[in-house]
């Protein structure tokens, strides 16, 4: 009996470890360091939240863009603006949709960092950022994409 309990709790621990890795909780400093690191990979950072309907609507378009560019150095990073106490919800959503990598940006005073992402950003989501440090490329967009407008945006700014 005790052995079974032990195995169960071990399994629970493992499961927690596994799920903890699916969404990485970061502060703005960490996020900023990713933005500024020299890399020849193009990163599309998508700011979203589980409660944001237009954000969820454009996720398949982002997944499609990721698939279209899988031969290139192209990465989609989902930056969740959900609160840390909703981590479980975010994790189960992300698992269901098969999204990775996913970061949860935990930095309450948004006024201190929104302008650092882009002065063009008012704070509304969805919003997206296309960064390629090797090419000195840094493009911000606030609003929803369709598949076509997303492809065009990547095309225009990605080459």
């Amino acid at each position, binding site marked *: 009996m005790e052995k079974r309990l032990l195995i169960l709790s071990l399994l629970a621990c493992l499961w927690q470890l596994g799920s903890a890795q699916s969404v990485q909780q970061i502060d703005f400093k960490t996020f900023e360091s990713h933005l500024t690191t020299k890399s020849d990979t193009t990163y599309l950072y998508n700011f979203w*939240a589980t*409660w*944001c309907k*237009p954000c969820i609507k454009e996720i398949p378009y982002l997944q499609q863009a990721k698939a279209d560019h899988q031969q290139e150095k192209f990465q989609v990073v989902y930056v969740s*603006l959900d*609160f840390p*106490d909703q981590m479980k919800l975010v994790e189960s959503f992300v698992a269901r949709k098969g999204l990775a990598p996913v970061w949860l940006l935990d930095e*309450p*005073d*948004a*006024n*201190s960092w*929104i*302008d650092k992402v882009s002065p063009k*950003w*008012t*704070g*509304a*989501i*969805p919003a997206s950022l296309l960064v390629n440090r090797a090419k000195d490329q840094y493009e911000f967009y*606030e*609003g*929803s994409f369709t598949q076509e407008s997303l492809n065009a945006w990547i095309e225009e700014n990605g080459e």
Partner: protein
Amino acid sequence: MIRTKLTLFLLILGFSSSVFGQAAYEIGSPVADFSLKSTENTMVSMENYEDAKGIILAFTCNTCPWAKLYESRLIELHNEFAPKGYPVIAINPNDPEVKPGDSFEAMQTRAADKGFPFAYVVDPNQEITRMYGATRTPELVILQRNAEGQLAVAYKGAIDDSPRDASAVNKPYVATAINALLKGEKVEVTTTKAIGCSIKWSPS
């Protein structure tokens, strides 16, 4: 009389928006009055608040989780500052066709459930929202009556720096701004940004 005034106002509104296009108010801009229907089925205009030193406009809605987190704090702002001359008017900018949870009936239910002590009005053609350049809910604008007696924009942005936890607020942006105005001082932080739900614009 009221009708002529309204027509005149609508004319001016139409005129100004056609002349100035999409350019939104900035800090210091004097603002035009509006006439918007409240959940109590009355028309609300700034001229109804002639004794007010200013007005706190809150672009907010029923459906956005961040807006909901701030509902209690909006009530507190009104309860604290309306007696001091700064009442809250909450404006729902969302197109209910896009967001059914923001229908007029849903707004009435929300206002009753939460016991809003302030007017909760609808901006049916989103004209007022555009004039203020609001992009998200919640987003606040403090209007201050200037020397000429006109209401002008004194602050635009977030209520405070801690959406999730009202007890962890370090920078109560709106309260700080109004307290400065009450003392006749300059507002130090006139613009702030915050994460919020995009305004649900009418597709047409």
